[in-house]
Protein backbone atom coordinates (compact mmCIF):
# COMPACT_ATOMS: atom_id res chain seq x y z
CA UNK A 1 0.00 0.00 0.00
CA UNK A 2 2.81 2.37 0.87
CA UNK A 3 4.45 1.63 -2.45
CA UNK A 4 1.35 2.67 -4.31
CA UNK A 5 1.04 5.92 -2.34
CA UNK A 6 4.70 6.78 -2.94
CA UNK A 7 4.42 6.11 -6.65
CA UNK A 8 1.27 8.26 -6.84
CA UNK A 9 3.03 11.12 -5.05
CA UNK A 10 5.98 10.95 -7.42
CA UNK A 11 3.64 10.91 -10.39
CA UNK A 12 1.79 13.98 -9.09
CA UNK A 13 5.06 15.83 -8.50
CA UNK A 14 6.30 15.00 -11.98
CA UNK A 15 2.98 16.03 -13.52
CA UNK A 16 2.99 19.34 -11.68
CA UNK A 17 6.52 20.15 -12.91
CA UNK A 18 5.65 19.26 -16.46
CA UNK A 19 2.50 21.33 -16.37
CA UNK A 20 4.34 24.38 -15.06
CA UNK A 21 6.95 24.13 -17.80
CA UNK A 22 4.30 23.77 -20.48
CA UNK A 23 2.37 26.78 -19.25
CA UNK A 24 5.47 28.98 -19.15
CA UNK A 25 6.24 28.18 -22.75
CA UNK A 26 2.72 28.67 -24.20
CA UNK A 27 1.53 31.73 -22.24
CA UNK A 28 3.96 34.55 -21.66
CA UNK A 29 4.04 36.29 -18.35
CA UNK A 30 0.64 37.80 -17.61
CA UNK A 31 0.26 41.46 -17.06
CA UNK A 32 -1.17 42.38 -13.71
CA UNK A 33 -4.57 44.05 -13.77
CA UNK A 34 -3.42 47.08 -11.81
CA UNK A 35 -0.81 47.92 -14.45
CA UNK A 36 -3.40 48.17 -17.14
CA UNK A 37 -4.47 51.76 -17.93
CA UNK A 38 -6.63 53.32 -20.46
CA UNK A 39 -3.57 54.73 -22.04
CA UNK A 40 -1.91 51.51 -22.16
CA UNK A 41 -5.00 49.99 -23.58
CA UNK A 42 -4.96 52.56 -26.15
CA UNK A 43 -1.36 52.07 -27.03
CA UNK A 44 -0.22 48.51 -26.42
CA UNK A 45 3.29 48.09 -24.98
CA UNK A 46 5.78 45.67 -26.37
CA UNK A 47 5.68 42.13 -24.71
CA UNK A 48 8.64 41.18 -22.40
CA UNK A 49 11.08 38.69 -23.79
CA UNK A 50 10.89 35.05 -22.53
CA UNK A 51 13.66 32.49 -22.64
CA UNK A 52 11.89 29.19 -23.24
CA UNK A 53 14.98 27.09 -23.11
CA UNK A 54 15.93 28.51 -19.78
CA UNK A 55 12.46 27.92 -18.44
CA UNK A 56 12.49 24.36 -19.76
CA UNK A 57 15.86 23.76 -18.26
CA UNK A 58 14.74 25.14 -14.95
CA UNK A 59 11.62 23.02 -15.04
CA UNK A 60 13.67 20.02 -15.99
CA UNK A 61 16.06 20.72 -13.16
CA UNK A 62 13.20 21.15 -10.75
CA UNK A 63 11.61 17.98 -12.01
CA UNK A 64 14.90 16.19 -11.75
CA UNK A 65 15.38 17.49 -8.23
CA UNK A 66 11.88 16.55 -7.28
CA UNK A 67 12.31 13.12 -8.76
CA UNK A 68 15.63 12.79 -7.02
CA UNK A 69 14.16 13.80 -3.67
CA UNK A 70 11.12 11.65 -4.18
CA UNK A 71 13.33 8.79 -5.18
CA UNK A 72 15.47 9.25 -2.12
CA UNK A 73 12.42 9.54 0.05
CA UNK A 74 10.93 6.55 -1.63
CA UNK A 75 14.16 4.63 -1.17
CA UNK A 76 14.26 5.58 2.47
CA UNK A 77 10.62 4.73 3.01
CA UNK A 78 11.06 1.55 1.09
CA UNK A 79 13.96 0.50 3.31
CA UNK A 80 12.03 1.38 6.44
CA UNK A 81 8.94 -0.37 5.19
CA UNK A 82 10.98 -3.37 4.15
CA UNK A 83 12.48 -3.55 7.60
CA UNK A 84 9.05 -3.17 9.16
CA UNK A 85 7.62 -5.79 6.88
CA UNK A 86 10.53 -8.05 7.69
CA UNK A 87 9.96 -7.46 11.35
CA UNK A 88 6.24 -8.05 10.88
CA UNK A 89 6.90 -11.20 8.95
CA UNK A 90 9.37 -12.42 11.49
CA UNK A 91 6.95 -11.67 14.29
CA UNK A 92 4.11 -13.27 12.40
CA UNK A 93 6.16 -16.35 11.63
CA UNK A 94 7.35 -16.49 15.21
CA UNK A 95 3.82 -16.19 16.52
CA UNK A 96 2.57 -18.83 14.13
CA UNK A 97 5.45 -21.06 15.01
CA UNK A 98 4.92 -20.54 18.72
CA UNK A 99 1.20 -21.19 18.31
CA UNK A 100 1.89 -24.34 16.38
CA UNK A 101 4.43 -25.42 18.96
CA UNK A 102 1.90 -24.66 21.69
CA UNK A 103 -0.78 -26.60 19.83
CA UNK A 104 1.64 -29.43 19.29
CA UNK A 105 2.58 -29.38 22.97
CA UNK A 106 -1.08 -29.36 23.95
CA UNK A 107 -1.84 -32.28 21.68
CA UNK A 108 1.26 -34.05 22.91
CA UNK A 109 0.28 -33.45 26.53
CA UNK A 110 -3.20 -34.70 25.80
CA UNK A 111 -1.85 -37.80 24.08
CA UNK A 112 0.62 -38.35 26.89
CA UNK A 113 -2.15 -38.03 29.46
CA UNK A 114 -4.36 -40.42 27.49
CA UNK A 115 -1.53 -42.88 27.04
CA UNK A 116 -0.61 -42.63 30.71
CA UNK A 117 -4.21 -43.24 31.71
CA UNK A 118 -4.42 -46.24 29.36
CA UNK A 119 -1.15 -47.63 30.63
CA UNK A 120 -2.33 -47.08 34.19
CA UNK A 121 -5.60 -48.92 33.50
CA UNK A 122 -3.69 -51.69 31.76
CA UNK A 123 -1.31 -52.00 34.68
CA UNK A 124 -4.24 -52.12 37.08
CA UNK A 125 -5.93 -54.83 35.02
CA UNK A 126 -2.70 -56.80 34.76
CA UNK A 127 -2.14 -56.47 38.47
CA UNK A 128 -5.68 -57.63 39.24
CA UNK A 129 -5.33 -60.54 36.83
CA UNK A 130 -1.97 -61.47 38.31
CA UNK A 131 -3.37 -61.42 41.83
CA UNK A 132 -6.35 -63.51 40.75
CA UNK A 133 -4.05 -66.01 39.02
CA UNK A 134 -1.75 -66.13 42.02
CA UNK A 135 -4.69 -66.76 44.31
CA UNK A 136 -6.07 -69.43 41.98
CA UNK A 137 -2.67 -71.08 41.60
CA UNK A 138 -2.05 -70.97 45.32
CA UNK A 139 -5.40 -72.64 45.97
CA UNK A 140 -4.76 -75.21 43.26
CA UNK A 141 -1.26 -75.96 44.50
CA UNK A 142 -2.57 -76.31 48.04
CA UNK A 143 -5.31 -78.68 46.89
CA UNK A 144 -2.83 -80.70 44.84
CA UNK A 145 -0.52 -80.90 47.82
CA UNK A 146 -3.35 -82.04 50.08
CA UNK A 147 -4.45 -84.65 47.53
CA UNK A 148 -0.88 -85.87 47.13
CA UNK A 149 -0.39 -86.07 50.88
CA UNK A 150 -3.70 -87.88 51.24
CA UNK A 151 -2.66 -90.40 48.57
CA UNK A 152 0.68 -90.78 50.29
CA UNK A 153 -0.96 -91.44 53.64
CA UNK A 154 -3.45 -93.81 52.01
CA UNK A 155 -0.61 -95.78 50.46
CA UNK A 156 1.65 -95.45 53.47
CA UNK A 157 0.09 -98.52 55.07
CA UNK A 158 0.84 -100.51 51.90
CA UNK A 159 4.39 -99.21 51.91
CA UNK A 160 4.92 -100.23 55.53
CA UNK A 161 3.24 -103.60 54.95
CA UNK A 162 5.45 -104.23 51.91
CA UNK A 163 8.48 -103.25 53.97
CA UNK A 164 7.46 -105.71 56.70
CA UNK A 165 6.88 -108.49 54.15
CA UNK A 166 10.23 -107.83 52.49
CA UNK A 167 11.96 -107.66 55.84
CA UNK A 168 10.44 -110.85 57.24
CA UNK A 169 10.69 -112.82 54.01
CA UNK A 170 8.95 -116.17 53.64
CA UNK A 171 10.50 -117.82 56.66
CA UNK A 172 7.93 -116.58 59.13
CA UNK A 173 6.99 -119.06 61.83
CA UNK A 174 3.23 -118.83 62.25
CA UNK A 175 3.39 -120.63 65.58
CA UNK A 176 4.58 -117.34 67.01
CA UNK A 177 1.28 -115.81 65.92
CA UNK A 178 -0.82 -118.66 67.29
CA UNK A 179 -1.72 -116.96 70.59
CA UNK A 180 -2.74 -113.88 68.64
CA UNK A 181 -4.82 -115.98 66.23
CA UNK A 182 -6.61 -117.79 69.03
CA UNK A 183 -7.19 -114.52 70.88
CA UNK A 184 -8.74 -112.93 67.80
CA UNK A 185 -10.91 -115.98 67.18
CA UNK A 186 -12.03 -115.93 70.79
CA UNK A 187 -12.84 -112.22 70.64
CA UNK A 188 -14.94 -112.80 67.55
CA UNK A 189 -16.29 -116.18 68.58
CA UNK A 190 -19.95 -115.19 68.56
CA UNK A 191 -19.85 -113.63 65.13
CA UNK A 192 -17.96 -116.56 63.63
CA UNK A 193 -20.27 -119.06 65.30
CA UNK A 194 -23.35 -117.30 63.97
CA UNK A 195 -21.94 -117.06 60.44
CA UNK A 196 -20.86 -120.70 60.37
CA UNK A 197 -23.87 -122.37 61.93
CA UNK A 198 -26.75 -120.30 60.63
CA UNK A 199 -27.22 -122.54 57.58
CA UNK A 200 -25.94 -125.71 59.18
Amino acid at each position, binding site marked *: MLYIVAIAVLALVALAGWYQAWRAGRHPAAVPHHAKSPLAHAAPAAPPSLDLDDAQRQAGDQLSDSIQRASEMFQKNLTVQALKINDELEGLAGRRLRQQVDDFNRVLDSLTATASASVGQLETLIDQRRKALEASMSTQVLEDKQRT*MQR*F*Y*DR*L*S*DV*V*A*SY*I*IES*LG*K*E*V*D*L*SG*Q*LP*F*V*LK*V*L*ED*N*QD*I*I*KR*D*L*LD*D*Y
Partner: protein
Amino acid sequence: MTINPDSAIATPLAIQGFVERLEDWQTHLQQQEIKRRLRLGDLDSPDRQLLKDLRLLQIESDLATTETVGEVIKAIKLWLKSAPVLHLTFSTQADRHSQTAIIDWLHQQINPSVLVEFTVDGSIAAGFVVRTKNHLYNFTANEALWRSRRKLGELVQHV
Protein backbone atom coordinates in the same frame (compact mmCIF):
# COMPACT_ATOMS: atom_id res chain seq x y z
CA MET B 1 -25.89 -137.71 59.50
CA THR B 2 -23.52 -135.55 61.49
CA ILE B 3 -19.83 -136.10 61.19
CA ASN B 4 -17.34 -134.77 63.69
CA PRO B 5 -13.94 -134.98 62.03
CA ASP B 6 -10.73 -135.15 63.99
CA SER B 7 -8.42 -132.17 63.70
CA ALA B 8 -6.05 -134.32 61.64
CA ILE B 9 -8.56 -134.57 58.81
CA ALA B 10 -10.82 -131.56 59.36
CA THR B 11 -10.10 -129.85 56.10
CA PRO B 12 -12.24 -129.97 52.94
CA LEU B 13 -9.22 -131.07 50.94
CA ALA B 14 -8.44 -133.96 53.29
CA ILE B 15 -12.06 -135.09 53.31
CA GLN B 16 -12.24 -135.01 49.52
CA GLY B 17 -9.01 -136.98 49.34
CA PHE B 18 -10.45 -139.55 51.72
CA VAL B 19 -13.62 -139.83 49.63
CA GLU B 20 -11.54 -140.47 46.50
CA ARG B 21 -9.66 -143.23 48.31
CA LEU B 22 -12.99 -144.73 49.42
CA GLU B 23 -14.21 -144.64 45.82
CA ASP B 24 -11.04 -146.42 44.71
CA TRP B 25 -11.60 -149.00 47.41
CA GLN B 26 -15.20 -149.41 46.30
CA THR B 27 -14.08 -150.07 42.73
CA HIS B 28 -11.55 -152.58 43.98
CA LEU B 29 -14.25 -154.35 46.02
CA GLN B 30 -16.53 -154.57 42.99
CA GLN B 31 -13.76 -156.35 41.09
CA GLN B 32 -13.13 -158.63 44.11
CA GLU B 33 -16.79 -159.53 44.33
CA ILE B 34 -16.83 -160.54 40.65
CA LYS B 35 -13.80 -162.75 41.23
CA ARG B 36 -15.45 -164.31 44.27
CA ARG B 37 -18.60 -165.12 42.29
CA LEU B 38 -16.41 -166.80 39.72
CA ARG B 39 -14.65 -168.53 42.58
CA LEU B 40 -11.39 -167.02 41.57
CA GLY B 41 -10.53 -165.63 44.97
CA ASP B 42 -11.71 -164.05 48.25
CA LEU B 43 -12.35 -160.45 49.11
CA ASP B 44 -9.43 -158.38 50.37
CA SER B 45 -9.57 -156.60 53.73
CA PRO B 46 -9.73 -152.82 53.63
CA ASP B 47 -6.54 -150.84 53.99
CA ARG B 48 -5.60 -150.04 57.58
CA GLN B 49 -5.03 -146.40 56.80
CA LEU B 50 -8.47 -146.23 55.29
CA LEU B 51 -10.03 -147.59 58.44
CA LYS B 52 -7.89 -145.30 60.56
CA ASP B 53 -9.04 -142.23 58.63
CA LEU B 54 -12.62 -143.45 58.89
CA ARG B 55 -12.28 -143.50 62.62
CA LEU B 56 -10.96 -139.92 62.50
CA LEU B 57 -14.33 -139.02 61.04
CA GLN B 58 -15.98 -140.95 63.85
CA ILE B 59 -17.90 -143.14 61.43
CA GLU B 60 -18.55 -146.74 62.34
CA SER B 61 -18.17 -149.07 59.35
CA ASP B 62 -16.02 -152.05 58.36
CA LEU B 63 -15.88 -151.00 54.69
CA ALA B 64 -16.07 -154.68 53.85
CA THR B 65 -18.60 -154.55 51.04
CA THR B 66 -19.34 -152.23 48.20
CA GLU B 67 -22.68 -151.43 49.79
CA THR B 68 -21.21 -150.31 53.09
CA VAL B 69 -18.50 -148.32 51.35
CA GLY B 70 -21.13 -146.76 49.10
CA GLU B 71 -23.20 -145.76 52.13
CA VAL B 72 -20.19 -144.15 53.77
CA ILE B 73 -19.28 -142.24 50.61
CA LYS B 74 -22.83 -141.02 50.21
CA ALA B 75 -23.02 -139.90 53.83
CA ILE B 76 -19.74 -138.03 53.68
CA LYS B 77 -20.63 -136.29 50.40
CA LEU B 78 -23.99 -135.29 51.73
CA TRP B 79 -22.46 -133.92 54.90
CA LEU B 80 -19.70 -132.15 52.98
CA LYS B 81 -22.24 -130.13 51.00
CA SER B 82 -23.51 -128.37 54.10
CA ALA B 83 -20.58 -128.69 56.47
CA PRO B 84 -19.53 -125.43 58.13
CA VAL B 85 -16.25 -124.38 56.55
CA LEU B 86 -14.02 -121.65 57.92
CA HIS B 87 -11.34 -120.23 55.60
CA LEU B 88 -8.20 -118.93 57.24
CA THR B 89 -5.56 -117.09 55.17
CA PHE B 90 -2.04 -116.50 56.45
CA SER B 91 1.07 -114.93 54.99
CA THR B 92 2.77 -118.34 54.78
CA GLN B 93 1.72 -121.95 55.04
CA ALA B 94 0.51 -122.73 58.56
CA ASP B 95 2.50 -125.46 60.24
CA ARG B 96 0.82 -128.65 61.43
CA HIS B 97 0.93 -127.70 65.09
CA SER B 98 -0.78 -124.37 64.50
CA GLN B 99 -3.39 -125.96 62.24
CA THR B 100 -4.22 -128.58 64.87
CA ALA B 101 -4.43 -125.98 67.64
CA ILE B 102 -6.77 -123.78 65.64
CA ILE B 103 -9.02 -126.67 64.57
CA ASP B 104 -9.19 -128.01 68.09
CA TRP B 105 -10.20 -124.62 69.39
CA LEU B 106 -12.90 -124.29 66.72
CA HIS B 107 -14.25 -127.79 67.47
CA GLN B 108 -14.42 -127.00 71.14
CA GLN B 109 -15.72 -123.43 70.97
CA ILE B 110 -17.72 -123.32 67.76
CA ASN B 111 -18.83 -126.74 66.58
CA PRO B 112 -17.17 -130.20 66.35
CA SER B 113 -18.18 -130.46 62.69
CA VAL B 114 -16.30 -127.38 61.55
CA LEU B 115 -13.89 -127.81 58.66
CA VAL B 116 -11.02 -125.41 58.19
CA GLU B 117 -9.38 -124.47 54.90
CA PHE B 118 -5.92 -122.93 55.22
CA THR B 119 -4.69 -120.74 52.33
CA VAL B 120 -1.72 -118.46 51.75
CA ASP B 121 -1.59 -114.79 50.60
CA GLY B 122 1.90 -113.31 50.21
CA SER B 123 0.62 -109.74 50.47
CA ILE B 124 -0.27 -110.22 54.13
CA ALA B 125 2.45 -108.75 56.35
CA ALA B 126 1.24 -110.42 59.53
CA GLY B 127 -2.00 -111.67 61.06
CA PHE B 128 -4.68 -113.49 59.12
CA VAL B 129 -7.99 -113.22 57.32
CA VAL B 130 -11.09 -115.13 58.36
CA ARG B 131 -13.78 -115.86 55.77
CA THR B 132 -17.05 -117.63 56.31
CA LYS B 133 -19.73 -118.33 53.74
CA ASN B 134 -20.96 -114.73 53.74
CA HIS B 135 -18.45 -112.63 55.63
CA LEU B 136 -14.79 -111.69 55.67
CA TYR B 137 -12.90 -110.53 58.74
CA ASN B 138 -9.51 -108.95 58.21
CA PHE B 139 -7.18 -109.30 61.18
CA THR B 140 -3.98 -108.51 59.29
CA ALA B 141 -1.29 -105.97 60.04
CA ASN B 142 -2.13 -104.40 56.66
CA GLU B 143 -5.61 -103.60 57.88
CA ALA B 144 -4.32 -102.28 61.20
CA LEU B 145 -1.89 -100.02 59.37
CA TRP B 146 -4.66 -98.81 57.06
CA ARG B 147 -6.88 -97.96 60.00
CA SER B 148 -4.13 -96.03 61.70
CA ARG B 149 -2.83 -94.39 58.50
CA ARG B 150 -3.50 -90.91 59.83
CA LYS B 151 -1.45 -91.61 62.93
CA LEU B 152 1.17 -93.23 60.71
CA GLY B 153 1.30 -90.05 58.64
CA GLU B 154 1.75 -87.93 61.74
CA LEU B 155 4.57 -90.20 62.84
CA VAL B 156 6.26 -89.84 59.47
CA GLN B 157 5.91 -86.06 59.65
CA HIS B 158 7.65 -86.02 63.02
CA VAL B 159 10.53 -88.21 61.90
